[in-house]
């Protein structure tokens, strides 16, 4: 092997990393201790944060990238991949996270957006990105900017799965409706979706997104996680749902098993026994518009 010919950060490497996460649970953690619990429970990766989304909601103010010291402590503790969030459009936060060596960056609506016009040009980075989406057009716009993984936005920090379900159904339903369309019809559809035509054509022919598609935003129980898997997700992110529950260790293990056995209700029943209280949820419809996170980004 000629060492000068090594190619880093190619699209294949970025999307390949995302593929290795499939069938897995990615857990939000705010400390090295929580990261260890997540790894022991069988998480495929952890998301290193200053606060979980439920606490970001409660704290208010401007939510930013986590302290690099905390991220580094978490990276030093676990051997599974460590992800971290940058604000929408804040490419310097993303540069900082890349220089720390995080394995994937989440350009996330959970943090306060830094740019209301442009998302980060993700193709310029060596590390892969995951981005939130509510519908197919949004998902494909992010893919065209270089996202290697898409997740539903849901409504983070609510413990209410309804928005994740809505966004997942919107994306997968739209993909099904592309089936059987002729190429000129797909090009027209691409204009309506405000997405690049070649990505719409690729999505139509493969009948799935060009990248891995996870669910996020409100998943709080093993049944919630299995629901998203049965709806066609490749895996799940669990934010506040684990460390805001009464027994995080049990909840973390139970959600991992529910994702592994997503199609076996008896197993989901068994792992759901005696978990104590899940996180306290919020009614999404009662949120004032300025507290809704999913409308950040476009």
């Amino acid at each position, binding site marked *: *092997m*000629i*060492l000068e*010919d*090594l*190619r*880093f*950060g*190619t699209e*294949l*490497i970025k999307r*390949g*990393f995302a*593929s*290795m*996460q*499939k*069938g*897995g649970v990615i857990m939000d953690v705010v400390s090295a201790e929580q990261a260890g619990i997540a*790894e*022991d429970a*069988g*998480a*495929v*990766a952890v998301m290193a944060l200053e606060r979980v989304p439920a606490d970001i909601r409660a704290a208010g103010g401007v939510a930013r990238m986590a302290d690099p010291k905390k991220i580094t402590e978490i*990276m030093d503790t676990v*051997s*599974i*991949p460590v992800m971290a969030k940058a604000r929408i459009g804040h490419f310097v936060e993303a540069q900082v996270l*890349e220089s720390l*060596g*995080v*394995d*994937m960056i989440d350009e996330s609506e959970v943090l306060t957006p830094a740019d209301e016009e442009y998302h980060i040009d993700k193709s310029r980075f*060596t*590390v*892969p990105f995951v981005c939130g989406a509510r519908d197919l057009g949004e998902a494909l716009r992010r893919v065209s900017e270089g996202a290697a993984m898409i997740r539903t936005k849901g409504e983070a920090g609510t413990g209410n799965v309804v928005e994740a379900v809505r966004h997942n159904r919107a994306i997968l339903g739209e993909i099904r409706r592309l089936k059987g369309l002729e190429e000129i019809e797909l090009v027209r559809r691409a204009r309506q979706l405000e997405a690049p035509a070649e990505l719409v054509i690729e999505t139509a022919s493969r009948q799935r997104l060009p990248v891995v598609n996870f669910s996020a935003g409100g998943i709080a129980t093993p049944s919630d996680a299995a629901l998203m898997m049965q709806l066609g997700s490749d895996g799940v992110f669990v934010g506040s749902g684990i460390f805001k529950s009464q027994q995080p260790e049990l909840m973390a293990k139970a959600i*991992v*098993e529910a994702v*592994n056995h997503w199609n076996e209700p008896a197993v989901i029943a068994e792992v759901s026994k005696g978990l104590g209280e899940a996180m306290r949820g919020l009614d999404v419809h009662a949120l004032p518009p300025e507290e809704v996170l999913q409308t950040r980004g476009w």
Partner: protein
Amino acid sequence: MSMPCHLKRCSRPVAGKAPVGVLALQGDVSEHISAFETVIRELGQDIRVIPVRKPEEIPSLSALAIPGGESTTIMRLIDKNHMRECIRSFEGGIFATCAGMVASAREVTEETRFTPLDLADITVSRNAFGRQRESFEADLSINGFEPPFHAVFIRAPIITRAGSDVRVLAEIPRGIVAVQKDKRLILSFHPEISHDLRLHHYFLSEVLSR
């Protein structure tokens, strides 16, 4: 933690037509399935490729792929689903990539969270090249393959020691990245996502001919 595999007698492999299984606990399972399907089609064979989630499915397979993914997660689920002994006593071919290599090792350096499956006498070091930003694509010389193989290394492990009964197929300055032990092919990289399927061809012809 593990149960013995009592299932061997109930389902004997059917020569030639037995399906190829892909361990479907976590990781790039669908990529492995479609890579094997492509190669089987090219070979003109009539063999199914199936995702495997239960121990009783293993003995009747002709081969089992252990995919890429997170080795800690996959090992945890192998034990949780009582698959350890069925995989260890499986006599068909094993095609292991990346996390699959970690799972197949006799020994994993500095790993205390799980005991690997010991499918070959190798010592493996996890994330040997570093973090994701150090993941790379490269053309790799593999014994018997010309031109070089297009290899994709993603947070890849490396073999730091191979026993005398293990055949080394590819080695780079950092260590060994491909070995064969009888019908077991163990790789640091991911041929299932690089679209270079020559190792799949080689594996299936080795497995199906023995």
